[in-house]
């Protein structure tokens, strides 16, 4: 938020007029209540339902104080339903996707922005062009590529690589990194070069440490996108032992009792919500990047 916006739509004089002041207050109160109900309500309900016996949830879903608490739901979800396994798969998928995306974007962005090879413009253009291609067009051919990848020989289905590697082909990340690197002060690079730093050391010891903010943004995007992904891991990880929560939960719904299932849903939401609460600023700044052209 820029410093100049110590005022907005309403002028300080507006705030002094009772009619404006009170309508604004009422509107804000209503907005806050609405946001709390819509944003927090479902999550609070889930938290309650996760420790409520099935019949209570079915018969009186909105009862504030259920007949009994059943914390065993959480334990049962974790062990018998093996949420732990799917949870770790989810983490492994997110970690791998994060690593691949960061590797590709950081090295690629560095090469394009700092090393600037002659064919850089062509490569840049080719990467940028993929931004225009909607995801749907990739679905089938990418699946067939995973079945029979070039160079590898063996099908990558049922391996985490089938999720990790395609995640790396993310043009937004490359672009973000490239632009960030391009705006770093060149004098620092020159000084490093005079000190005898080659391209590797320059990357590792100068550029990366200076790029924490953008690495943070890309990391959040990567982890959240991976946590959210459904269709792709469902297609390439048909083996339940490898599936993440998002793919597994709809299947479990058929077999697991409702209270345990809700506990599983609650556990699945925990990490992303916790991450959000901790890194709120990063998330919201990142989100505003989402469409911002100004400001």
């Amino acid at each position, binding site marked *: 938020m820029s410093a100049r916006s110590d005022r907005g739509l309403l002028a300080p004089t507006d705030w002094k007029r009772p009619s404006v002041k009170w309508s604004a207050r009422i509107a804000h109160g209503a907005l806050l209540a609405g946001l709390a109900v819509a944003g927090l309500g479902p999550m609070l309900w889930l938290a309650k339902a996760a420790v409520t016996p099935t019949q209570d949830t079915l018969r009186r879903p909105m009862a504030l104080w259920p007949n009994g608490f059943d914390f065993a739901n959480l334990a049962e979800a974790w062990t018998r339903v093996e949420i732990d396994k799917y949870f770790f798969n989810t983490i492994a998928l997110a970690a791998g996707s994060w690593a691949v995306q960061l590797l590709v974007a950081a090295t690629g962005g560095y090469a394009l922005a700092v090393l600037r090879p002659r064919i850089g413009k062509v490569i840049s253009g080719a990467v940028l062009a993929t931004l225009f291609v909607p995801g749907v067009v990739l679905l089938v051919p990418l699946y067939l590529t995973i079945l029979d990848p070039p160079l590898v020989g063996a099908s990558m289905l049922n391996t985490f690589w089938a999720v990790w*590697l395609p995640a790396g082909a993310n043009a937004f990340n490359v672009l973000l990194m490239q632009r960030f690197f391009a705006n770093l002060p060149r004098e620092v690079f020159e000084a490093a070069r005079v000190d005898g730093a080659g391209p590797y050391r320059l990357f590792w010891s100068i550029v990366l440490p200076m790029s924490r903010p953008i690495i943070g943004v890309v990391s959040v995007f990567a982890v959240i996108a991976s946590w959210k992904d459904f269709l792709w891991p469902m297609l390439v990880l048909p083996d339940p032992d490898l599936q993440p929560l998002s793919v597994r939960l709809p299947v479990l719904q058929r077999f697991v009792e409702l209270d345990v299932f809700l506990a599983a849903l609650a556990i699945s939401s925990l990490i992303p919500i916790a991450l959000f609460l901790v890194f709120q600023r990063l*998330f919201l700044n990142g989100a505003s990047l989402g469409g911002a052209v100004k400001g």
Partner: protein
Amino acid sequence: MTSVDTRPAGVAGDRARPRTAARPGRPGGLLSRARGGLPTLVFLAPMLVVFGVFSWLPIGRAVVMSFQRTNLVADPVFVGVANFQQVFADPLLWTAVQNTAYFAALALVFGYPIPLVAAVLMSEVRKMRGLFSALAYLPVVVPPVVAVLLWKLFYDAGEDGVFNTILGWVGLGPFAWLQESDIVMPALVLEATWAAAGGTVIIYLAALTGVDPSLYEAAEIDGGGVWRKVWHITLPQLRGILLVTFILQIIGTVQVFLEPFLFTDGGPANRTLTLLLLIYRYAFTNSLGGDYGAAAALSLMLAVVLTAFSVLYFRLTRSWSNA
């Protein structure tokens, strides 16, 4: 991620769009000595391999495949435009086109004005703005599959369903949310909007802080009231970002998959069969063997339309960021 963005998050808060315009490059790379040398290649290699194998190659393959009959069992056969003809002959295509358009239109009705109003109000909040933003954004971080499965329970058609209980307090319902052909699509859109609107709010909020206060001051000197300021200053100032979120939302909602797949599997009676669900069925659930050709043909046609929107989006963001 890689594949299809399964959120109708036209407004996809989690999608980074670059905003900093690249400075026109200074002539010559920094390490001119190394231009094109081995180190450069080493740094380029991961990107070239990953994009080559998982982006450029599949995009090319999509075009080729749409003119082939291939089911992975027999060798692919070149069939000209037969796949396109087959897709056009499928009565479900028009059902899917209509449903998808309906979803996108409803998503605009539900998801377009509310975040704008919320953001304008929030931008005037002086205390606890962080709390407002956090509450608005919370649904966006809930894993979409969890959100859908949870809402599926909320939509239970019995009198004891969550929503029906709440509506029962004021004497409404019960509604058969997902089971009734007329309200199933609005029900899907409602969840999708809940899941995505927070991202749009944050985008508008950022844009609102960029509105130059002197414009408001000028309007006040002319004696403009609050509504006049909203109408004559705020909205025109947001024109650019409103168009951008509009286009982003269209691109996202046209590719909706998760909601119809998990809520209803396209039912009841194909009322929620969307284009992406149809492509998925062509490719992955046809028991005669995956009809990848038809799937590729339909994806390609959809992609051409969406790419037009993307190009439009890019031109808009470019021209504004250079302005």
